[in-house]
């Protein structure tokens, strides 16, 4: 899951960036509001973490602009003040959730996951597909009740496909969803992940649609 993080504070931004990566997200971190605002228009994000106290342009204005432009990505706002007013204004401006500083990384991750789940209309944290159970909460996969160890990127590809049943996803789409801009991507990275997933979960888990991309196999 690819997250857009806009936070000007060096230490908080850095911590969220690294921490969320460790928790299985790919994160693009911007310290400047203007760059962050543009980023959402350039890449497919699953969710946005937006600090309200940004220099240059303030978080609420960015949020309003996105919503005016029809961007529907779920947005979690971070506020430094615990004021009820600011929370209300944030939610009314189109935010989906808020967290007041000081918050814990784990809480940010949990809320982001919940937002994405809600956005994908999957209210339970587990997705079942045939004999596979994917637990989005603790990011584990079971095949016939047995846990299968997957790498973070493999988990992301699987999750992406599970959330887009009956849709064909191009190689570029998958790439954009699982890699942030600062990661180096080899040209066959997606193929390698698909290959590993088939090896671990069975050949029929993913169908290749020639020259278009991939989609989830029959259950």
């Amino acid at each position: 899951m690819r997250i857009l993080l806009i936070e000007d504070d060096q230490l908080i931004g850095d911590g969220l960036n690294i921490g969320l990566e460790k928790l299985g997200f790919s994160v693009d971190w911007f310290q400047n509001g203007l760059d962050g605002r543009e980023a959402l228009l350039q890449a497919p994000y699953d969710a946005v973490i937006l600090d309200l106290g940004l220099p240059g342009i303030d978080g609420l204005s960015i949020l309003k602009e996105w919503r005016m432009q029809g961007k529907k990505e779920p947005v979690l706002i971070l506020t430094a003040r615990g004021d009820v007013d600011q929370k209300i204004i944030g939610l009314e401006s189109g935010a989906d959730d808020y967290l007041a500083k000081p918050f814990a990384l784990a809480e940010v991750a949990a809320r982001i996951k919940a937002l994405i789940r809600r956005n994908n209309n999957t209210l339970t944290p587990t997705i079942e597909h045939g004999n596979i159970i994917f637990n989005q909460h603790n990011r584990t996969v079971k095949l016939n009740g047995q846990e299968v160890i997957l790498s973070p990127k493999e988990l992301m590809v699987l999750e992406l496909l599970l959330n887009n049943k009956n849709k064909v996803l191009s190689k570029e789409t998958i790439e954009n969803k699982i890699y942030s801009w600062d990661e180096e991507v080899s040209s066959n990275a997606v193929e390698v992940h698909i290959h590993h997933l088939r090896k671990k979960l069975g050949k029929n888990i993913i169908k290749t649609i020639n020259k278009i991309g991939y989609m989830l196999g029959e259950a």
Partner: protein
Amino acid sequence: MKKFSLQLRLIIFFILISGTVFLTAGIMSWYEGREKLDEFFDTYQILMARKLSSLDWQHINAESQSKIDKLIKDLDDDGEEEDDALGFAVFTHEGKMIFHDGNEGKDFHFNHNASGFENQKIGKDKEPWRIFWIESIDKQYIIAIGQEIDFREDAAFDLVEDTLLPWAAGLTILLIAAVYMVSREFRPVKKIAYELRHRDSNDLSAIDNDNMPTEIKPMVWALNNLFIKIAETLKRERSFISDSAHELRSPLTALKVQLEVAELAGDDIKTRNEALQKLCLGIERASRLVEQLLELSRLEAYEKDTSNFKDLNWEEIIQEAITTQQNAASNQNINIKYISKEKFCIKKGSPLLWSLLLRNLLDNAIRYSPYGAEIKVTMDKTSLSVYNSGVTIAEEIIPRLKERFFRPPGQSRNGSGLGLSIVERIARLHNCNVELKNENNGFLVTIHSI
């Protein structure tokens, strides 16, 4: 007397004054009354004596006897006058009493020298009497007519009593009116006291001064002014506390998040060490913020108290401030140059505060200058300035730099946003102002003496 309430003092004062007036009036009317009554009774006695003297005492016949009886009756039963108020006796020149009124008259002592008024003590009880002596017209007899002095005093007393009664009534009414007026006029004061006593400690609204008496108005006005000042101070304190709490949230969040990253890193030693390093950085930043918050809050409370100002040795203060920052400057390959043109004209002040001011300016200069920049500290007669090369600040942001907690956008260096607030406060305590401007491809902070 001072410890009693003003109201009680006024009332006691009124009682004493009216008491004194009453007493003076009483004594005065007593003496006046006595004198007037004496004159009156004396005249009456003389008149009676004349009547008696005109009688023919040698030949007392039926006609004269009836005259005497009538006189005696006049004396005895004179309407309102007390019985036996007057008595008389008739003596021969040899002192033999040939006639008396049948009562006290018989006890009169003959005094052959007497003529006119004389006081005697009469009877068993030695009552004092006033007696008038007169020779009868036929010069054969001497007539004495007397009156009991007690009777005169009683009459005088009655008179005084009658005069004083309206006085007493008037004074009582006056006193009641005075007590009522005093307590009525003190009602606004009581009202204020009541209001203040029952006031919530957070309520600093003004007391209504429109309906107050002129004497109370200045007091209420002063009190309201004090309320305004306290409210301002409170507001400042509260906003300082809330700003501080707010500013502490960010460093705390950073600490929390970096700690969690270190925990998450697990076997990834590189990530863990980096997170721990950033944690240390975050703790440093939080400590610096707390330190500066304390400095600023102390400065806010620091009254402009020139009594603890000392002579300032500028060379020493500046050299020392530069020395303490030298290490940080060297790390950034920054050279600090000191130019002393003339001695700064502020002669008295707090050396501690001035070194704090210089330390903050130098710290800012080092913190926000690029590697290898130059810092110049210049002392002149009317100014003290710190210049750093290599960095300029957008003109529209410069006026906001002195705001508490304000940090220019896109700031990667950590800082509290309090340094210039501290500088500004110290300068103002010493009657100086702070000028900020871009100059010569660098940033210049100048402290001007006003």
